[in-house]
């Protein structure tokens, strides 16, 4: 019979599916990981005051010129507290970090920056999470890697620590132009 191979088609299909599923199971793909819609896009426009001064408004033009990290944080976020000392040491190494205080209160944020030191070149105050929404932020902390033109190159969800920085994120930062 010339067309006998067709009987093996279902078997072939099962094998392909099994391969796909075992790849997904064994390679540790995280189903809750969500791609960022903003990678490769321009940083969205905004007008926000700083944590320190409610009359001092900043826009996206104030950020452009040099590559930077845009760190979304809040005083209600435990991982942000955990991450904070490492951001301080990155800042001392000369990494440019812009902070976005997300859905928080101004006096709490000010006290935090006083008590735990301030690694941010600029502290944007986003009490309603408007800039956060434009950036597709789902929680804190999140860190965006943005080049000197203001184009978002990479987004990391979760706290940054020294191992992660050395292994992965440092290279991303150094590749920003």
């Amino acid at each position, binding site marked *: *019979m010339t067309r006998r191979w*067709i009987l093996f088609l279902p078997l072939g299909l099962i094998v392909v599916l099994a391969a796909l599923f075992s790849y997904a199971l064994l390679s540790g793909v995280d189903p809750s990981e*969500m*791609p960022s*819609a903003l990678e490769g896009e321009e940083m969205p426009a905004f007008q926000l005051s700083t944590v320190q001064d409610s009359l001092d408004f900043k826009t996206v033009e104030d950020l452009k010129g040099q590559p930077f990290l845009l760190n979304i944080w809040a005083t209600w976020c435990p991982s942000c507290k955990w991450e904070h000392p490492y951001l301080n040491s990155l800042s001392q190494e000369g990494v440019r970090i812009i902070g976005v205080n997300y859905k928080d209160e101004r006096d709490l944020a000010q006290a935090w920056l006083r008590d735990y030191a301030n690694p941010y070149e600029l502290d944007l105050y986003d009490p309603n999470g408007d800039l956060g929404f434009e*950036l597709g932020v*789902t929680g804190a902390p999140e860190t965006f890697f943005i080049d000197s033109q203001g184009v978002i190159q990479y987004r990391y969800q979760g706290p940054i620590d020294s191992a992660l920085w050395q292994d992965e994120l440092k290279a991303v930062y150094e590749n920003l132009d």
Partner: protein
Amino acid sequence: MKTSISPSLIFVTLLLLGLAATAMAEREQRYFDNDSLRDRYEQLIWELRCPKCQNQNIAGSNAPIASDMREKTYELLHQGYSDEQIINYMIDRYSEFVTYKPRVTAGTVWLWLIPGLGLLIGAVAVFMLARRSGQQGAEPISDAERQRLTELLEKDRDAS
């Protein structure tokens, strides 16, 4: 004439009211300009997926981000956005992840094609197998066999 309301009816009514209250407890109070906006709002929050939670739509989630997305949906509806524009607005910020109804693209078109293709391949396979077994059907019986068959039948009839 005096009508009496049975105590059990009161009980059931209160019970249902209680259930309704718990079902609504999670949600914001919202006022819509008209019923069509309300219907579209309900439909949209049912179709949009919460980016922070596994397999929950934003209608059913208490995550802060789901609440923000409901708020945004409500605002955009009242600014005159169409349903498609609202979904695209969310996708532009939160990626394809946030819609339970994927858009048709070169990558996702297979979701619609594969079931059809599967059916087609199955139908072709069944058709070919059926035709082959049809061709292999029994040979017509010979005269000798027909003779023997008649004898057997007659023997049977005589016996009964």
